[in-house]
């Protein structure tokens, strides 16, 4: 129990939230040691930002731009099968027959209204899709140099792991931030478990801007994902739960930060997200007076 969180084995049970998440409304997160960067506050990070100038892509079931919560898209494409049976990108394809991608896009729009939203459909069988289509669509999104890519999906197929890891590294170096939701089940899948992406699971609080840093890997952050009112297909709205909806919350916050700090690299962005996280910022704001004089670090509260 006393082991440092990042040395611990991940838990197998997640009461009250989708797997990998934390029920922060009833169970406060544990404390851990933080080396402060006092300059970086939430205000510094995104105060006054609206996501303007940042290009965000939702890799999902497509996005319905007719939905009032979403609005106009910058680009809308889909992975399709051509007449030779090969996968190809149809850059004219619009719409979302399912609603899942529209839900993600709606969340991003609500937090970062100024960001330019795009969509590529890779899930072609309802909320399911093939690994090939995912690779094809994600490659396209990376080649398009989006700043932020939202992936509210994953695969358990081991054969896909190396290819996805390669793509995630590729994106990281090209400064395309992949914000990926953790699986809703206590199972390992990809690409959210890679270190080169920002992985997000759910907390169960209602504030869209509240997010937490998780010191126990493999999930980096907890964002709002429980009982979220979201846009859905055919102009509908519904309340839904899932790590799917935590990822776009964080993706939108990334868009806010990047719109204010244009040249942050993915690793800087992660550091900023860390310092501005609700559980970290609380310490850095409340604790300066209690700091030991000869020590920069905040004490480990046990």
């Amino acid at each position: 129990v006393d082991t440092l969180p990042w040395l611990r084995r991940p838990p197998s049970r997640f009461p009250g939230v989708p797997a990998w998440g934390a029920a922060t409304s009833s169970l406060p997160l544990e404390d851990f040691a933080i080396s402060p960067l006092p300059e970086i506050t939430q205000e510094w990070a995104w105060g006054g930002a609206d996501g303007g100038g940042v290009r965000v892509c939702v890799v999902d079931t497509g996005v319905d731009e007719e939905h009032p919560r979403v609005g106009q898209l910058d680009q809308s494409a889909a992975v399709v099968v051509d007449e030779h049976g090969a996968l190809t990108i149809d850059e004219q394809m619009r719409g979302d027959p399912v609603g899942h991608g529209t839900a993600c896009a709606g969340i991003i729009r609500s937090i970062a209204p100024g960001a330019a939203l795009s969509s590529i459909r890779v899930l072609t069988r309802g909320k399911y899709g093939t690994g090939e289509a995912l690779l094809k669509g994600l490659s396209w999104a990376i080649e398009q140099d989006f700043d932020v890519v939202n992936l509210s999906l994953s695969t358990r197929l081991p054969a896909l792991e190396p290819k996805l890891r390669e793509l995630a590294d590729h994106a990281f170096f090209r400064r395309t931030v992949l914000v990926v939701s953790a699986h809703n089940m206590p199972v390992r899948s990809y690409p959210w478990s890679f270190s080169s992406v920002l992985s997000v699971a759910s907390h169960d609080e209602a504030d869209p801007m509240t997010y937490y840093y998780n010191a126990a890997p493999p999930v980096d952050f907890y964002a709002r994902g429980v009982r979220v009112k979201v846009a859905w297909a055919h102009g509908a709205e519904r309340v839904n739960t899932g790590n799917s909806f935590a990822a776009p919350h964080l993706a939108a916050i990334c868009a806010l930060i990047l719109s204010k700090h244009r040249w942050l690299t993915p690793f800087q962005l992660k550091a900023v997200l860390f310092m501005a996280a609700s559980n970290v910022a609380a310490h850095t704001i409340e604790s300066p007076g209690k700091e030991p004089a000869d020590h920069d670090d905040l004490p480990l509260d046990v």
Partner: protein
Amino acid sequence: MCGAALAARSANENVRRHVVVLFADLEGFTSMSQGLDPELLRAIMDRYFRLTAQVIWRYGGLTEKFIGDAVMAVFGMPVARENDALRAVQAASDIIDELDLLNVELDREYGIKLAIRVAVHSGPVSASYDAGGDFRVVGDTVNTASRLQSAAPLRQVLVGEPVAQAVRSRVQLEAVPPLSLKGKGAPARAWRLVSLDAPGDTTSRAPLIGRDVELLQLRQAYDRALQRGRGCMVTLLGPPGIGKSRLAAAFQASLGERGPVVLSGQAISYGQGVTYRPIVELLESAPGTWAAFASKGVTDPAAARAQACLAGLSREGDTGGPEAEVEEIAWALRAFVASVAERGPLLLVWEDLHWAEPTLLDVIEYLGDELSDSPVMQLCVARPELLDLRPAWSGGRVGAVNLELAPLTTDETLVLVGELRQRGDVVAHDDDEVCALVASACEGNPLFAELMLDIAGDRGSQPMPQTIQALFAARLDQLDVDDRLVLEMAAVAGRDFLVPDVEHALLADARSDIDLGSSLDRLRRMRLVTGNRLSIRHSFAQAFGRDTAYEMTAKRNRLRWHLALADRATAAEATSHPQLAGPRNADLLPYHLEAALTLSRELHPNSPASGELGRRATAALTEQAMCAMDRRDLRAAAGLFERAVRALPAGDPRQHELAIRLSDTWLDIGDRDRAHAALGNAPGGDRLPVEVEIQRELIDLRHGLCTPEHILEVEQRIEPRIAHDDPAWCRFHQLRAHRHLMNERAGAADASLAAALERAQAMGDSYQQRRILRTSSQLTLWGPTPVPEGLQRCSELACLFADSRVSLVTILSTTGGLLAFDGQFAEARERLATAAAYAADLRMRGADVGLAHLQGMVESIVGEHRAAADHFSRARSILRTAGNANGVALLDAYTARELVAAGGPVPAPYPAMTDDEVAAISDPRTGALTAVLCARAAAGAGDVDRVRSLVEWVRALAGRTDDLYFQGTVHQDIAGTLVAAGRLDEALVAATAARERYRAKGVRAVLPRADDLVSQLERALRQETGGG
């Protein structure tokens, strides 16, 4: 031009058919034709039509018509075949490929290319032939095929749902978004043909989830069995659908290629009384091991015997002699299993044991005990009800463990449901309402979850049935009507059913239009049934699936199909072809008749048909019960007789006869209350009471509740009431024989049994005959029958019972005793050793006392008194454990007698016993032996008066039995005692009496000694007289 093949057929109007329709159409034909010369267009179209017609013909389809540039073909006319859908899909694929080749030519010659779309759909149509033999098919299926075709991508084949289901296991398909077809309400689901290559294994829908610990436990048990060579038995317990069989299968699969030989058998819910079916299945599940065992039988007589016994099981139903007995079957199975285990590790899987007959459970436990030092694992699968039937199952057995499968946890259930629902490698991470609903409603039961998902489809909002049966019923409601019909017929045929049985039911209903092959293909694909399309044997995937389908079937239909299948079974039994009259049909005849009877009574309570059906069912059940009796499977027999009684129409004269048989069975089992109760159920009638009254006495007598005086009184009361030809005589004589036996009059008992036997023969009652003969064999030893005659009878009986080692144990030990009387000691010992080996093989613990007693007797005759004392004392300790005080007293006396004969003093307590104590012993044998021992002690003490009075007492007691050998030994002992008391004259009288008894019996082994004693005494007396 089309349908020429049908020209010879007579006009056959408007038949309803299930067919597969292929629709092909060219893209942009109208625009292409505009720029072409009509003659050139005609030439191109001819080549295209010829190509398609040839491909269609090649795959056995009929081209129905050409409409402009469209081609329509039908597969499944005039005769449906099970692979119509597959052939149509192959034809569609070939048309596209061959058109590519044609296009190369067309492009070269005319600079044009044809682009085609194809669709394949299936369903019912109305087909009609005109007088010329041409045919037309009409129906919604045709329209849908045409619409699907227009939605197909260029150079692609789209198939509709029924075709996709039929070919999914053979070709690779990919779902396309549902199509909104013109003129159709709901969007139609469709699949694109990806490749004609078969897809990978699709048998398991979901990975095994949440059973890691159990799998590990199974693996450990197996590894220990293997490494330590210690057998083990693991029982998986859990409610239906919890995943017992899935776990068992996963465990088997985890053992890999170098895994054990696996043999499996399954109990069924409706085959009550068919105790050994799972064993037959087990034997058939690995033909290779059976062949190896058969070859072993060539050199090994024991293996040959076991093989014959087991082979007899699977030939059950043909009446080639009596069947092997329970003990023999258990032994044979052990021999078989042990021989397989000699060659490598072995896994026996017993499924659905909660439906097993008690005797099968006995066999499995017996195997567990006997194979505890072989690398054999028995994996039993059962619902928890098994523990109600057998509370002590696995209890106290070394290497036996029960493993209860708990419901999956919430998390495990969610993962499982997610996996079951997954339709691609990549999945979105929102809460799926269907998953959530199913996971929360399925109570951690995987099958429950799977059924719920099947029913829910993509919409989770509809309310879910709350019991697994209701769920399954809802699942059945979704079936195509014809598939449902087939499934219902299969359910009536049984959990394991034969395709010809279903065919037969279809024929009986005049529904041979149904394409059974494709229907079964679909049912297999939906995992409702399992089986191989090449095999006629299929099974329901879940036992309760069969039961639910059965319950959901209209009773009228069940009745009709049961009758049809009963007729089929009867017909099959009547033919002499073993292939046709397989064990299954014979087994299931009573099942079908009985089920039909129950339904008929419910539907037509007062119909005479019910009465007739009842008599047929009774006859079939009785026959099966008699078979069970023959193999001494008494509990199964009791169950079958009970059902036979219930099946008989009220007032049928056979009722009391069956009641007595049932009572007999319970009596053999040792359940006195039920033996009486069986009679109580027999209705009163004029000719009833006598036989029933005798039976009641027989029951009490066997439980030691009657005195000989009471029986005599009963005999006197009853005898005048029995008519000359009354079957009751057989039992009356048996009753009398028992009275004689109680009075130690073996000769008289033998005579009564002979009379009973005569009656049984006259009635043709072979069961009673065997029963009487078995009892009578022992009387030759313990009665006045001379030794040569006894040996003759025993050897006849040994021939008669050659197939029954249970009976041979008694017959051989009797023979051993008689041979010892005759002085053939080596042969005597050999017979007793064989009998002991049989008893050990068959675990006949009850035979041990008798064997030890006889071995003691033989050694006593030989003169090995110490050894004799040991045998008697062993018999005594067994009886003591059993709490049989009278037996202990008798064997104490025998042991003491041998110790004295060996030259020892009379042991305690005999020297200290008072006359009153001696007189209190009621058993004549024990009393006589005890009194002799007391007399011997008195002689040693010089109390001649007491010796004399005791000797008188001994004579009186010994005279009460007609056991000549026993009388001889007692008189011999008296002589010895009187010699010790110095009364040589009286001793001579006794010695002469002994010699006389031995002579009468023909005990040649001891005659010289008896002669010797007489002449010694005569000599001594002469000397005494001469000297005096």
